[in-house]
């Protein structure tokens, strides 16, 4: 049975194509269709016996018809690029917001319940004031009732009065617009208006080229990323290959930036970055290859379609390749240089690493590029492993007896873009969670981890994917036992590895890793 590509009503590609072809057809029809004879006949002379006719015969309409496909595709591409870029930038506004707020909450260590309660209780006596009274037409009065009700049942007890003083943060911002939302705009304005400083002996050409490379390749990645089944800028047959290739060009820009700044710190940062990114490209590519092998295609939309499957029995890739999902997550965190892998820009040692000498808009755009890469990583994870624009249990829910119809309607009404975004944002919250809790791994340990652990594991993942595709896949929807077995096996392995068995030995040993010191340090070995 040939399966149809998945779709929803938000068919921007289709609209754009039909709009461009409609407008081009109109132009075509408006063009004059008569031949304009611009031939010139040179009469024969003693040099040439026959008269020579040179010059064209213009037929505007036919001429236009011959270039119309090219024009249409150009216009369509421009429209789609603009649309996708806008969608990407607008939806990316959520990313720094998530980062800031989630890290703030983790650092507060207030916990989910306390955070929720702080909506009505405030924090240590500081509240937002009686904000509902500012609503017009007395709309706020029922809100005030709810507020007082919540406070009376789940209000503040005064046992923690002693320590409540340290929680003294107040609640600024308009209540209806997420407070702190405009911080990103304010930051960007600041970067945009700062002075452009080039270090004195820097290689000016390379210094200027480097941010261009980084930013350009990052944005180009989004050309191939489908935000929904019909929202993409380009969809060649091998979109996955193109995209991973472009994703891997950024290390070059990073190295240029580190070297061109004429600064020892940035040089070290650039070298570390080049080494790290190169080391983690390979497991990343092999993992992605595993996904492609399993899904049978190098086209991202077809990968998502593979997960959505036929009418029933579809399985998201994360349950078929749990190891691959974990590898993808880890290698992507290393690729976008977030903690725990942010040694190239480790603030404690290198101030800002390879971008220390950049200021103003160049720094701002590279900072944005880092978040764009994280965002791309999150979206790719959602597309490769989490079923893209499919709602969880979409087929099962739609197939239920009575309520299935309602679900069907809801799923049809909600465009796929929404699901992709929700998954990507939640995954970004996981990125932030990891960032807030882990320490920075040292460069040689990062490289050791990448080459000696992740690379073999990605090979294993590839083998698993190949076996699944060749031996287990029958063209029919997956049997239930396949994903269940794989997921349970992965969980069991994780649990076994996470449990420390020999507590005593660990307690006594507690020194699992060693470092290689070049020369043993001891006082007196320091030459004056």
């Amino acid at each position, binding site marked *: 049975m040939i399966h149809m590509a998945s779709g929803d009503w938000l068919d921007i590609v289709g609209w754009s194509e039909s709009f461009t072809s409609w407008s081009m057809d109109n132009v075509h029809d408006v063009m004059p269709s008569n031949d304009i004879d611009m031939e010139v006949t040179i009469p024969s002379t003693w040099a040439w016996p026959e008269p020579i006719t040179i010059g064209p015969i213009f037929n505007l309409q036919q001429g236009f018809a011959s270039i119309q496909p090219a024009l249409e595709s150009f216009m369509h591409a421009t429209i789609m690029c603009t649309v996708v870029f806008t969608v990407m930038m607008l939806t990316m506004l959520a990313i720094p917001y998530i980062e800031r707020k989630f*890290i703030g909450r*983790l*650092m*507060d*260590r207030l916990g989910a319940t306390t955070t929720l309660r702080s909506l009505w209780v405030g924090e240590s006596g500081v509240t937002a004031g009686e904000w509902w009274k500012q609503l017009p037409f007395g709309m706020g009065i029922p809100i005030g009732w709810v507020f007082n009700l919540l406070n009376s049942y789940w209000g503040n007890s005064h046992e923690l009065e*002693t*320590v409540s*003083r*340290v929680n003294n943060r107040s609640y600024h911002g308009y209540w209806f617009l997420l407070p702190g939302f405009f911080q990103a705009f304010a930051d960007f304005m600041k970067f945009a208006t700062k002075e452009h400083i080039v270090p004195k002996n820097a290689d000016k050409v390379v210094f200027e080229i480097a941010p261009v490379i980084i930013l350009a390749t990052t944005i180009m990645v989004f050309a191939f990323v489908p935000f929904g089944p019909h929202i993409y800028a380009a969809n060649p047959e091998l979109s996955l290959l193109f995209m991973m290739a472009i994703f891997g060009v950024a290390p070059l820009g990073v190295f240029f930036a580190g070297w061109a700044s004429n600064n*020892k*710190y940035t040089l*070290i940062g650039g070298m*570390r970055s080049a080494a790290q990114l190169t080391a983690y490209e390979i497991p990343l590519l092999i993992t992605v290859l595993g996904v492609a092998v399993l899904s049978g295609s190098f086209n991202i939309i077809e990968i998502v379609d593979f997960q959505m499957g036929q009418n029933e029995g579809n399985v998201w890739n994360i349950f078929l390749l749990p190891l691959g999902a974990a590898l993808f997550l880890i290698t992507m965190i290393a690729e976008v240089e977030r*903690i*725990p892998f*942010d*040694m190239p820009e*480790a*603030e*404690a*040692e290198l*101030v800002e690493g390879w971008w220390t000498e950049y200021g103003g808009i160049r720094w701002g755009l590279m900072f944005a590029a880092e978040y764009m890469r994280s965002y791309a990583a999150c979206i790719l994870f959602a597309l490769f492993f989490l079923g893209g624009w499919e709602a969880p249990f979409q087929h099962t829910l739609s197939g239920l007896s009575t309520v299935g119809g309602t679900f069907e309607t809801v799923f049809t009404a909600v465009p796929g873009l929404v699901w992709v975004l929700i998954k990507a944002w939640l995954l970004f919250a996981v990125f932030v969670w990891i*960032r*807030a*809790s*882990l*320490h*920075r*791994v*040292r*460069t*040689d*340990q990062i490289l050791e981890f990448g080459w000696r652990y992740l690379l073999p594991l990605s090979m294993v993942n590839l083998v698993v994917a190949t076996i699944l595709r060749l031996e287990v896949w029958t063209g029919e929807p997956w049997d239930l036992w396949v994903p269940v077995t794989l997921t349970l096996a992965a969980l069991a392995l994780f649990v076994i590895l996470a449990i420390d068995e020999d507590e005593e030995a660990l307690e006594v040993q*507690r*020194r*699992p*890793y*060693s*470092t290689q*010191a*070049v*020369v*043993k*340090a*001891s*006082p007196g*070995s*320091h*030459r004056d």
Partner: protein
Amino acid sequence: MAEMWISMGPQHPMTHGLWTLKVKVDGETVVDTEPDLGYIHRGVEKICEARDFTQITTYCDRLCYASANTWSHSYIYAAEDLLEVEVPERAEYIRLVAIEIQRIASHLMWLGAYGPDIGNLSVMVWCLREREMMMDLLQELGGSRMHYNFPRVGGVKRDLPHGFAQRARAKLKLFLNRIQEYEALFDESTVFLVRSQGVGYAKPEEMVNHGVTGPNLRAGGVNYDIRWAHPYSVYSELDWEPPVERSSIKGADCYDRYRVRVEEMRVSASLALQALDKMPGGADTHHEPGDPMILAKAPTRAPEGTTGAHHFEDSRGESMFYIAGGGEGRGKQPYRVSIRSPIFITIPFAAKCMIGYKVADIPAIMGSFDPCIGETDR
């Protein structure tokens, strides 16, 4: 790649203070180091030659601003040795409470700065919040958040405020629970273990020969502590043990130094709680400032030829004041005040410890020795 000298500092996020560490690197490996101090040398020793003994206490707070109480008490004990004053017992207990709470606050500051050095940003906020609790307690005792000017020659400037004991107990007990959260974030993180174990080895005998004491020394497997070796104050009346960490066979590494300080926070909290329980006169009685129960009458002049010195267990090691009497005003001011800073000696040692490791280990090693430049430069 050729070797090159990198200058880390004086403006650098790693250095925990204003100093320069010039590092010679060969690729990523540290080959040589040279520390450069003196950027905030304020000439405290010279200034003290023109101040009365009571006026000097304020300067000593500002020596190591993260651990102000320990320094002013270190000076006061030396001044009491010089002027030969006997201190009432209640005052000693109050001093102990102040010193131990200050030690907790100092270690919290250290831990809050050490986490970001290694990459963990959350723990800075967590530790500073607990430090706020400690600073609140010290503010009740001393009057300000950082520089308290708390002890006087012969006692303390005022008694425990009303309700202080109850608040201190609540906060210290809460703090003891919170320490487990820091341990969870550090000890259970393989990344931290990998970063801090096997890095920056130092053996006790070389540390002692080099002049390094305090938690850095106890990380090496010896439990030497000035508080029992040359006892002062009322530590003998309380039940405590200095925490010791079993090091590795190559010496104490950064992980050991971290663990010692975490355990020291627990020990200090327990010392403070015991002192509150055992306070002569009870922790809830309150004497007016100047009451002989908390402040003994002390002479203000030290004739020429007298000297006083005192070794003190500061949060970072052994601090010492040496005062020679007989200065201006017929002995009202000292002739010479000499201040021994543990970190002044530890920084060159730590700089040597770094040789052979990677650039990325520099903040890990430096941070684990807990530098505070205020006392280094005086």
